[in-house]
């Protein structure tokens, strides 16, 4: 640490002025005048005088503007014209760092590892894109969420720094291996920090990969960015830590807000959960079932399902990570041209998850392509566009025709789950009959043999009694803790 500091000092002495992010004429001009980011400048344009620190310019913004942080802390953009003068009078570099908290592990607390993949609880600004980047060291994490210190001995490790849309099936394998490594090193539970967009895909994949899982694997993220004081991230990570450290459960789960309030989180089975809103905290919902459990504002866990797999001996746990990612998802719509499926066959895909309408139907135009897939031994798993409910290709003639052309029903698997399962299955066999057998057998809760009434709780806002429900506040809120008074 000390060394690093002296290095930075040296750099400052060199007085390198880099106009980071500035382009075109303005960049040339700044370089020529030896002015760059963090320069304190006076900009004169006609009667107007602007004074402030030059900030890096983000990409995808208009050329020719200088961004200044002025004395009040605000940023402004000034259009630089030829008769504008820029005069440097100082230099003030911004250093972005959460204050360190030194942490000593306590024997009586469980050991939990937090594997970072890109989802964050603390983050910082990226001047290049103007977007948010994760800040991810143990010290930063504890500084941002000090409550964690008293919950478990948490070791954060970064395995990659990825936006979740950039995930690939290969990363599921690496993630599973990383989790396994932690279990072997004595972790009582593992948390995976993950971008929320594809979190349920990873959840599904890991569910299939872990065999005889003996401890919890908890995926967690934040829907509202962690650079805001209202972020759901901190509470999510607190709850996830609690589940990973203490809950008597041994499954791959997602732990995210249950409602818009910071009052309880839901524990979703990795294979049954779906992101149902682009931005809300409570976007994650278990589909066609109720969640596995709930964790309240004081971290009390209640399981709601009686088939929760309990903790066991970690020595029995192993991972089966054979995969074949040459799988695609097709989404059927009226007028869909069969050349979409043909193209996939031409491109030598090994398996298809086909999202059919209603009970799982596609149009008759698609039949020749289906037959072709059958001939070329490409398994096609049908799931339903409505997301809720089962496929059934025996009710209507279309369905029966489709079955005759070799497709098989994916029961009530979610499209994302069926996709991850197909990839995993094809890693084990290319035999179409064998694939169908594995795909249609429940392995990790992805297929339920019944749907309970509460499995379909899509409220429309008009249900009697709902208005009263929406007005209620949490009767069991967080007990107040006083971070300031703990330090005595």
């Amino acid at each position, binding site marked *: 640490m000390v060394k690093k500091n002296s290095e930075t000092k040296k750099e400052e002495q060199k007085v390198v002025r880099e106009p980071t992010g500035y382009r075109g004429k303005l960049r040339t001009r700044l370089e020529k005048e030896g002015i760059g980011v963090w320069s304190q400048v006076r900009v004169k344009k006609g009667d107007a005088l602007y004074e402030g620190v030059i900030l890096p310019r983000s990409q995808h913004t*208009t050329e020719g503007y200088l961004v200044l942080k002025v004395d009040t802390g605000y*940023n402004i953009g000034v*259009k630089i014209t030829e008769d504008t003068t820029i005069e440097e009078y100082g230099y003030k570099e911004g250093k972005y760092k959460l204050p360190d908290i030194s942490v000593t592990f306590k024997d009586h607390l469980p050991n939990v590892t937090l594997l970072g993949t890109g989802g964050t609880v603390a983050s910082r600004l990226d001047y290049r894109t103007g977007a948010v980047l994760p800040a991810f060291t143990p010290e930063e994490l504890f500084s941002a969420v000090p409550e964690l210190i008293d919950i478990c001995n948490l070791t954060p490790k970064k395995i990659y720094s990825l936006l979740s849309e950039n995930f690939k099936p290969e990363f599921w394998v690496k993630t599973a291996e990383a989790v396994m490594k932690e279990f072997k090193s004595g972790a009582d539970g593992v948390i995976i920090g993950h971008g929320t967009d594809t979190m349920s895909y990873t959840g599904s994949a890991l569910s299939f990969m872990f065999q005889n899982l003996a401890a919890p694997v908890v995926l967690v993220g934040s829907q*509202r960015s962690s650079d*805001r004081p209202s*972020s759901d991230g901190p509470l999510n990570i607190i709850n996830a830590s609690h589940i990973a450290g203490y809950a008597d459960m041994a499954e791959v789960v997602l732990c995210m807000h249950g409602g*818009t309030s*910071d009052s309880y989180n839901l524990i979703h089975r990795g294979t049954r959960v779906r992101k149902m809103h682009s931005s809300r905290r409570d976007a994650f919902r278990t589909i066609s079932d109720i969640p596995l459990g709930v964790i309240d504002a004081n971290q009390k866990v209640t399981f709601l399902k009686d088939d929760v797999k309990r903790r066991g001996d970690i020595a029995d746990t192993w991972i089966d990570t054979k995969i074949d990612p040459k799988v695609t998802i097709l989404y059927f719509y009226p007028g869909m041209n069969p050349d979409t499926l043909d193209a996939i066959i031409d491109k030598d895909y090994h398996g298809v998850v086909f999202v059919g309408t209603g009970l799982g139907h596609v149009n008759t135009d698609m039949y020749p392509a289906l037959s072709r897939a059958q001939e070329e031994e490409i398994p096609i798993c049908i799931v339903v566009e409505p997301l809720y409910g089962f496929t059934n290709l025996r009710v209507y003639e279309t369905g029966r025709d489709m079955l005759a052309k070799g497709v098989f029903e994916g029961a009530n698997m979610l499209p994302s789950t069926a996709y991850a399962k197909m990839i995993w299955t094809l890693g084990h066999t290319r035999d179409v009959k064998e694939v169908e057998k594995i795909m249609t057998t429940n392995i990790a809760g992805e297929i339920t043999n019944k749907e309970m009434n509460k499995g379909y709780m899509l409220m429309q806002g008009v249900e009697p009694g709902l208005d009263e429900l929406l007005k209620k506040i949490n009767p069991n809120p967080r007990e107040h803790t*006083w971070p300031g008074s703990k330090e005595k």
Partner: protein
Amino acid sequence: MLDLTKIDFKKMGFRAGIEVHHQINTKRKLFCHCKPVLSHGEPDYRFERYFRPVLGEMGDFDEGMLIEYEKGYRVIYHAYEDSVCVYEQDEQPPFWPDNEAIYLGFELAHWLNFSALVDEVVVSRKQYLDGSITTGFQRTMIVARDGWVPIRGKKLRISNLTVEEDSARKIKTENFGRTVYYNLDRLGMPLVEVITDHNDCDNPQDLQRAAEYIGLTLRLSGIGKRGLGVVRQDVNISIRGGHRVELKGVQDLSTFVDLAAREVARQDMLIKIAAMLKERIFKKKELEHTYIDLTDKFAEKNIPKNSVIMGIRLPKFGNLLGLEIQPSKDFGQDIIEKAELISGIPRSNLFHSDEIYKKAFRKLREKTLRKRKEQFQENIFFPLVTDKLDKDIRKTLKLKKEDGYFLALGPQTWVVHAMKKIIERAKMALDGVPLETRRFLPDNNSEFLRVIHGQDRLYPDTDTPPIDMDIQKIEELKKKVQKRPWEWETEFKEKYDLDYLKVKAMIRHETITTVQDLIEKFKLNPKKCYCFIEEILLALRREGFDTSKLTIERTAEIIKGAEDGVYDFNQVSNIAKTIINDPQKSLKQALSDLKIRKISDTELQKLFAEALSQLTKFKDEKIAAKDGSINNRIADKITGTIMRRTNGSISGKTVYDFVLEKLEGKISS
């Protein structure tokens, strides 16, 4: 007692600035498409949140934010479907900001002489952890810098103009202030914030004038929204040797001077206390975080379950805590208020050593309230801490004569938290005035609200890219600028001898152009025009008359009639009423209906003679009093009689003057 009237602001090195927050007139909220309307009654839904600080752009936690976090608020929101959407719930990123609102900001910048307009607007986030904003930050953008308003021949600079979203409305607090309720309707309404330069103002009167000019500009330009609660003002005040203190929530500009005086007194006393501590060779390290349990010194029945009483030493603070820093408020109380706000221990469970005296301010106040039979929370310690117990406590705490102490009662963690805050605050005493944001109390004193927010709580909004403005369009907005309040003021003073107070009223009521038209186009007397528009019509509106039925031509006709002597000016109200009731009615008809006619001097003379003879004949009244002057009673009676008989066609004053003159004549003859 502190004498505020003796404060010489200039001598004290008084400096002050004001922040005017004013809602502006737009069709939608700033970052979503909800209507900017207030909602009432039972909310459609509720939800709750907790907040924690995040790093500022330069990489630091803001000190003020950490203190806010320590308060540990549970925040409960009340939301209505007609004024709130998922954006205010902080469940979705913002929509593109309302361009109309941003351009209104630029227009206002032209009105207020801003020179440095922003070419590219960067939306920033300003952290607030009190729950008043669901995101935990206010989205705000600076649109211009370096403006000014003229105050008594000098330029008072306005440093910044921002356009930002308004916060939620606080409803109430519970659980010792730890649970806060907000109504979300106001959140996201666009407002402008105008900030004057702290260094340019050395007396409260000038600051008041600047604030009024800004408010009047918002009214004249039509940029400001009208109605209750659309404006909030915060001031910042410092004196020489003190520090800039922010005072939130000035309700009434007329209380300004008093507010300022109380803050000056406070800072002055805090500086004196720092000097006294230095004299006592006090060092900060003498203040230790050693909290001593004193529970067993008190009878058990006085202490609620799960609670403890603790004491803490304040070396060399003896007799300083009782010093009056604002009228009827001592230094110890200032510390107690801060400890209460952060820890949640109510002030009635806190006590400082100088409150052993019978004349301690809080004791006196309790006495007054008791006498008035008002409900209040009695301090737990006042009856319990006797001289004997005080001695015992001082012994246990190992205090010397010049030392002081604090006591607190509550759950242990809360008490420890409160004591920690007391020590922190006491340490600051050596530096005089702490940088604080304070809030005004009903008596114009103030109390701690939060540590002053620094610039580290500001960072760019990652949800909205910088907005390049249409520079041409901004330039064109200059054309919308018309006469500014100070220009109206000068013009009305010089041309019509109408003073600032009258100008202020006319701008507020949006009547100033009408009054000027009456004066200029219809060549009428300025004072009469003002009086008719501002006083007479206002009175009529209060009586329920729809004065909008009176066109400017009819108005001019009525005033002119009085000026030409067709009737007395005191009749214009009645004439106006008649015409409002039937706008088609001609003035002649109205006069006839009201039986108003011109009274000639001869007729007046006749009426006087009749009234006088009646009085002297039947009542035997004497014209002159014993000392030879006019008998006032007889003058009044004669005037009354004449007024009745002329049906008010002539003004009381004219008649009275006439009567006096005639009586005078009678006596001297």
